[in-house]
């Protein structure tokens, strides 16, 4: 009897030893947190090769700035500086006191957008809003829709109302300047109003291992036209972009650029084609980074932005802006009047 009980207890103890599959662990001190951050990016970040980043060299460079007695803010600054080397607007370190953010992807470029000019000088503050869409008819009988963020949901009914109202217009301007992205399902919902058949949106890929070049085969994905009975748009369209058109908004442009009758006007978009992933450090800081690259319908990366259609690259003229004229919007109006 005693032997049986002993065997049972030994089996029980053996079963509770949690050493089945090893998991790398990091200390919760400055060096441990730094190494955890470096390691998470090293094994999950998806644009090392595309951006020609030597992550080992960067790690060595910033590790030298880490020392045991440094404060949390000092460590945060070192980590933030290291992440800036990735030149990625989707990569942020979040602490209780700050969020690191690489801003040069838009701060080094002209803004090319002034919302007040449109509200005041083109609509005299007389525009409508439905869901996340602001819309109205310009005096040249051209419809105008501003979508400020793909994070704001759009209802199918809202789209029907907006497109019905604009149905008599000769053309449509979709203004997604300063649109920093949001939900890709809203991209699908909006694109679905401008296509007549199942359309290739692009390809999505993901890291399938910790190596810098471990990627799955790109998977093609499609968007279907909106359901029968929904209001569609078949007239010419100009999509307005600037450098702050980013992430899901960049994805919208990557699809719209290949749809017949659609032109992209303004400035190169900001990119942000990597679907963000989240992770965290032992001290509780969160880290977001690009983890899954999305390619356009031609299999091309849009991480560095999408150029406007040929002949449609326009910057806001400061003299125009001073006089209350939106140079890019004026260009789009002329394109639609041709």
């Amino acid at each position, binding site marked *: 009897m005693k032997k049986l009980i002993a065997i049972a207890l030994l089996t029980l103890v053996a079963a509770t030893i*949690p050493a089945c599959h090893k998991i790398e662990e990091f200390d919760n001190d400055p060096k441990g947190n730094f190494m955890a951050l470096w390691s998470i990016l090293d094994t999950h970040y998806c644009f090392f090769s595309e951006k020609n980043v030597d992550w080992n060299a960067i790690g060595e460079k910033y590790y030298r700035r880490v020392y045991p007695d440094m404060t949390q803010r000092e460590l945060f600054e070192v980590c933030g500086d290291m992440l800036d080397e990735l030149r990625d607007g989707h990569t942020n370190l979040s602490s209780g006191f700050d969020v690191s953010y690489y801003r040069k992807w838009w701060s080094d470029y002209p803004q090319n957008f002034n919302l007040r000019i449109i509200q005041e000088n083109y609509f005299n503050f007389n525009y409508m809003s439905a869901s996340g869409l602001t819309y109205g008819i310009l005096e040249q009988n051209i419809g105008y829709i501003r979508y400020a963020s793909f994070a704001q949901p759009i209802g199918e009914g809202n789209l029907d109302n907006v497109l019905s109202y604009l149905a008599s217009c000769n053309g449509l301007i979709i203004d997604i300047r300063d649109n920093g992205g949001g939900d*890709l399902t809203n991209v699908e919902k909006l694109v679905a109003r401008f296509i007549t058949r199942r359309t290739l949106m692009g390809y999505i890929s993901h890291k399938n291992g910790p190596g810098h070049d471990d990627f*799955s085969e790109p998977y093609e994905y499609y968007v279907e036209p909106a359901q029968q009975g929904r209001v569609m748009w078949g007239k010419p369209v100009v999509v307005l972009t600037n450098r702050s058109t980013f992430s899901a908004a960049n994805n919208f442009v990557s699809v719209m650029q290949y749809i017949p009758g659609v032109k992209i006007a303004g400035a190169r978009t900001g990119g942000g084609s990597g679907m963000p992933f989240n992770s965290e450090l032992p001290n*509780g800081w969160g880290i977001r980074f690009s*983890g*899954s690259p999305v390619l356009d319908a031609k299999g091309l990366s849009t991480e560095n932005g999408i150029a406007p259609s040929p002949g449609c690259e326009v910057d806001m003229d400061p003299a125009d802006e001073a006089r209350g004229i939106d140079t890019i919007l004026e260009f789009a109006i002329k394109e639609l009047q041709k």
Partner: protein
Amino acid sequence: MKLLHAITALLLLSATAFTARAEETVRPVTSTYTLEAGSAHLHDTYLTPLGYDGMTTAFTYQRAQAMKFNPRHWVMQLRLSVGMDHAENPARNATMWGTGLTAGWNMTRRWRLPHDITVAAGGGTALNLGALYLTRNQNNPVSAKCSWTLDATGYISWNTRLLNIPVTLRYQPTLPLTGIFFSQEYDELYYEIYLGNRRNLVHPAWAGNYFAMDNAVSADLKFGSTWLRVGYHNTLLSTKVSAITTRMISHSFVIGISGEWLSLRRGAIPPQSSTIISAY
């Protein structure tokens, strides 16, 4: 597959040999309802490199009955369990939830030993459906945990008395041997699966990539027809596939009620000569 055929043949043979005897026996059902509460450790490298610690709770229904074809030696058990875990990261600024639904069935051959000791060994199958949810993550907040396994199981039990109360002490380990389980690829978003990419999501389970163990220790204190069950339940799941490592461990205190029930058709009273063969 050969193993399955062999088991089926063995069962049919046993059934034929013991049919006559089975007609003279009554096989009560032992039903048990238990609540569990204890500690949980959740770790899934798809969601985070950090282990989360917290608490687990579960409700379990178990049903055991001697098999008709050979009630003295063969017993089946059915187990349905629903559980929930709540855990925090080491910095205690993020929360992970775990949910799970388990349905398991097994059949064991038992041997009565001297001193009211019974040992049993056999096999079974289990279906597990669940998920881990890390609230701080945006595009990768969930890691689904689904599996279907073929298990080895057994138990040792001892009928004795404690403070003059009849008690059954029992220890039952269950060890999945093979099966299939779900896992997304290394950094694959569920959005990509939603878009239709279903490649490489189901994986064969073997000891190298899927190790799980369930240990249940219980004491049934028999106060008349209703028994009080107290015990300890330990679960361990460790998987590594597509370079994603998962480790989930729980230690729970168990309390519940149990009893033997006889299901009879109206007016069908078993003859006095019937032999009652319990699952315990």
